[in-house]
Every structure is written in structure tokens, then in C-alpha cells.
């Protein structure tokens, strides 16, 4: 049975349209011109227990709004949400008892106090009995290496340590679902590795269902069995990571630095995606033309000082998906 069910969920925000100028500001004060913004537009999906889902999309695509609705902070304008069979709108307390939520940009830990003090508070809030608490602490210490800093005030922790503390705090009450909103944002490579390792471990050992939003392609490649891509409030892609990565990986980026300004022409097998001053970027499909052939062709017409070939970033990858979808819908 599905652990999370989302059916035709819509979320509208009502905002007041602001125009520049004092006259317009006064007018808007007296007669506010209201506009409805649809942040989530008829989204449906189901998630099975034990899945790790990447919920991705550009900024403003409605990711955080969806996380907030799944966890009961916001209520949908219309549509149904059920988490473990319960509606978070109707029975918030029952749903959140079984939920761990981490916002990468904010902490739930007491800033001025030792990390362990926050854990003690959460133990009481979630009514974790002594035995479970001890077992969970041992497991979390093991995976996250908390012992080095559990006795330090949170304000003295590095960002990576703090994030590990926040993950532990979210798991103390043995929730079966974990929502992670950009858990690796701003972290160094080692901290990212530790956090990915943690997510994999709890998923394997405890069958915890994880939904994470991220802009880091590595997070998704290393963790997610399934990816849901959203744009402008709608789902544009929902499937196993392999299929989506395959679709994206043929694209490569060739970045060229010129010795002097020159007239830059497109190549039959590569498209110019950026050109400013002495910097030019070509995007090409490695199945259509090899990097060495492209470089050989271009070096005949351009004074090249330096060059590099890059994998597409997640933003490039996503842009690719959105563009394709738009073409499909326009062509249909």
C-alpha cells in the first residue's frame, strides 16, 4: 500500500499586484489588485514505503509548497493528501508523529545550548521511551559521528556538523517518513558524503521513506531510485533516475576561451549556448559528434587559448527537460 498519496492537489496563493511609483502604491493601498498565483497545479503521485524520491525543479517550481502541504503546515486549495492513510489537514498531530522534517536553510536546534539538550527536548515532545531513545542514539551516533560535538553549543558547530545534528534530531522518534528540503546546501564534499551515507543507511536499515528536494545532481544520482521533476507547479517527469539521466547524459558542454575577438559561427552538430566577450560555450550530443572532432573543427575557424568539456549541471539538465516538454506540447 502506498505510504503517501497525492491526488489532484492544487495550491493557490493570493498576492497583491505591486506597481512602481507613489501614485500606483496609493492606489494599490485603497483598491488592491489581487492576483491568484497557482504554485501547485493539479499534481498527483503515490509513493511506496522505502522509496527515496528526488523532488526537483527550478526555484519557484512549488517544491517547498508541496513539502509543506505533505507535512500539514499548509492546506491545499483543493485535492486530497494522505500520509500513512491519514490526512495531514484533518489530523496534523497523528501525521507529524510519524514524520521527520529537515529544512537545510533553517535549524530546529537550540542555538545557544549543547546539541544533546535539543535531543532531550525532542525525546519528551515525541514521547520516545528510554529504550528506543538509547537505541536510536546509538545508531545515529554510529552513522553520523555525533560524539565529537554532541557536548558543544550548536552555535559553535560547522555547517556540516549542524546539519548532521538536524538529521539526528529528525530521526530520534523513529519516523517512517523523512522530508529533506535541500539537505546538502552549502556543505563541503565530506559533509555531503556523510549525509548521503546517512540517508542510504536509514533507508536500508529502517525502510525509511525519503523525499528530498535538491539542486545537487550528485545527491540524486547517488541516492534516488525515482525522480519527480516539477516546473511551474506541474509534474514534467516522473520516473526512475536511470531513464532520466540517460536522456540527459548525451549532452556535453564545450567551453572555449578565445585569444582575441572573432566571429563565432554555429557548428552543424553543436549549438552555441553562451557567447560573451572571449568566452564561448557549445552544447553537443556526444552520440552525434565526438568532443575531439568538434574541437578539431572549431580550432580551424577560432583562435582558441583554452578549452574544457563539462557534464551538464542539474539546471542545464532540467532546462533540457522543460524545453523538450514545451516542444512536445506545442507540436501536439
Amino acid at each position: 500500500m502506498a505510504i503517501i498519496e497525492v491526488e489532484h492537489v492544487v495550491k493557490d496563493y493570493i498576492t497583491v499586484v505591486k506597481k512602481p511609483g507613489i501614485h500606483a502604491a496609493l492606489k494599490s493601498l485603497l483598491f488592491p489588485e489581487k492576483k491568484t498565483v497557482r504554485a501547485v497545479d493539479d499534481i498527483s503521485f503515490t509513493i511506496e514505503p522505502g522509496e527515496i524520491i528526488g523532488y526537483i525543479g527550478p526555484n519557484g517550481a512549488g517544491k517547498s509548497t508541496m513539502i509543506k502541504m505533505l507535512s500539514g503546515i499548509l492546506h491545499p486549495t483543493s485535492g486530497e493528501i494522505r500520509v500513512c492513510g491519514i490526512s495531514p489537514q484533518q489530523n496534523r498531530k497523528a501525521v507529524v508523529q510519524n514524520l521527520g522534517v529537515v529544512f537545510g536553510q533553517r535549524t530546529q536546534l537550540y542555538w545557544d545550548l549543547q546539541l544533546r539538550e535539543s535531543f532531550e527536548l525532542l525525546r519528551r515532545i515525541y514521547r520516545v521511551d528510554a529504550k528506543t531513545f538509547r537505541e536510536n542514539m546509538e545508531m545515529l551516533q554510529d552513522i553520523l559521528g555525533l560524539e565529537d560535538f554532541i557536548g558543544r553549543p550548536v552555535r559553535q558547530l560547522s555547517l556540516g556538523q549542524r546539519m548532521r545534528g538536524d538529521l539526528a534530531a529528525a530521526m530520534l522518534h523513529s519516523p517512517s517518513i523523512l522530508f529533506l528540503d535541500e539537505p546538502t546546501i552549502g556543505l563541503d564534499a565530506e559533509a555531503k558524503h556523510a549525509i548521503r551515507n546517512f540517508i542510504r543507511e536509514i533507508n536500508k536499515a529502517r525502510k525509511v521513506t525519503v523525499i528530498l528536494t535538491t539542486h545537487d545532481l550528485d545527491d540524486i544520482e547517488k541516492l534516488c531510485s525515482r525522480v519527480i521533476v516539477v516546473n511551474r507547479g506541474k509534474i514534467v517527469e516522473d520516473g526512475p533516475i536511470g531513464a532520466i539521466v540517460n536522456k540527459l547524459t548525451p549532452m556535453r558542454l564545450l567551453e572555449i576561451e578565445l585569444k582575441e575577438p572573432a566571429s563565432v559561427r554555429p557548428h552543424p552538430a553543436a549549438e552555441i549556448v553562451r557567447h560573451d566577450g572571449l568566452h564561448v560555450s557549445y552544447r553537443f550530443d556526444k552520440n552525434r559528434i565526438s568532443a575531439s572532432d568538434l574541437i578539431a573543427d572549431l580550432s580551424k575557424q577560432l583562435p582558441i587559448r583554452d578549452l574544457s568539456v563539462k557534464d551538464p549541471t542539474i539546471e542545464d539538465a532540467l532546462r533540457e527537460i522543460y524545453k523538450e516538454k514545451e516542444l512536445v506540447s506545442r507540436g501536439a
Partner: protein
Amino acid sequence: MLSVLRHYGSVAACYLRLTFQQQLEYPLFLVSWMLMIPIQYFAGIYLLKVIIDHFRHLNGWTYPDLVFIFGLGLLSHGLMVVFFINSWMIGRMVIDGTFDRLLLRPMNVFFQLIASYFNFIGLIDLIPGIIIFLYACSLVGFEWTLPNILKLVLILAGAVLIRAALFVMIGSIAFWTKKNAAVHNFALVILERTTMYPLNLYPYLIQALFTFVIPIGFISFYPASAFLDRDRFVLPFDLAILTPVIGLVFYGLSQLIFNWGLRKYESAGT
């Protein structure tokens, strides 16, 4: 039922310990409050003295009467600041998103809001309040009989509830507007002006406003008049004893508004 009480009690005790430790982290901050607050209040009492020296009395209220009103008001202010200070933070928590965290925990939201900050610094507010009130009691010859003490306790409880309710309502405005600082500061000034001076100095309309709409008069003015038994200001009923009742009603109303605002917050979002 008992297990629910035990749950909330255990969380409240933990909050209490954590906020105590938290506030001890910054001892110099504590000291600066200890210096500032008594100066503020003793300056207030000195102002009353100056006024009386010039006018001999205010509408029939003498210096001891005025100090009594002032002292009674300070006591409920101090207690409110100790227990309900977080009702001042709703606006900030809505804007910076910390309010969302309360919704993510399996407990009553209002309980978490209030219990999560027990303000020890508020006790410093209370000390000059107690000194000034005791001083006033000796000036007016307050009789420390059991009925009077009981009355005093009830009145203080009611006054704290009235003050708390007012700030909960103002805090709840943030659920609609996101920003409530202006209303909040306005209320602070109004409270100071109306609980320090006799309400019947003000025009009739304002007296009515602070009796029937926003019952600030019941915080210190009406109870003090009853205690002082002023025949020059006869109350239509024995209004003083109404303070705890009005406190409960006004507080109940603030809970309705808070919950209404919370539903609005959940359906609108930020």
C-alpha cells in the same frame, strides 16, 4: 487524560530548564536589564511625585493612590512578561519561518508557543514592581487580611490574563498581515499610559473604550479604586471583582482569534 497532562508537563519542565540555561549564556545581557528596568520604574514613580507636588492631586487622586495604581499595574505587567512574552514574537516567527516548526510537532501549537520561552529576565521586571507595590501599600494603609489577599491574587491573575489576551490578539494579526509591529508598539504605549494613571482622567469615550471594548481598566484602575474605597469615584457595580471573570472571557476570546488566524495561516501560507 492523565498521560496527556504528564506529557505536556514533562515538555514544559524541559522548556523551563532549557530557557533558563539559554538566558544564563549571556550574563552581561542580564545585568544590563537589571540596571535598566528599575531605573525606568523608579523614574515613573518620581514623575508621579513631581506631578502631585505641582497639582496637589489629580482629579481627587492623591500621591499614595497613584502609587498604588502604578504598583498594582506593574505586578501584572511583570507576571505577564515572565509567562507570556512569546506572544510578542508571533509576528517575527511568522516572517522568519520558525512558526512552521511548531506545526511540525505533535503538540498543541499555542502551548508550544507560550511554554517554549519562560522569561527569567521578566523576574527583574517584577522586583521593582513588588517594591513599589509594597511601598504603596504602606502609604495607603492596605490591610493584609485574608479576604484582601485572596482578592489581590484573583485580581492579579485576571489582570495577567487581560494583558496576555491583548498581546495574543495583536500577535494573531500577523497571521493575516505578516507584520504587526506597529500595532504591538501602540498597545505597549497605551497599556503604560492607562495602567499608570487613573482612567477617569480621560474623556468619557476613552473610559468607555477601555472598559467595554478593550478592558484595560480592569488591570489596575478599577481594582485599585475598589481597594481604596474612594467615595468620590463610585463604581456602578462592584466592578473590581469582575477582573478575573473579564480576564477569563477576554483570554478565551484571544484563543478563538488565535485559532482562527492559525487556520488562515495554514490555508494562505507565506
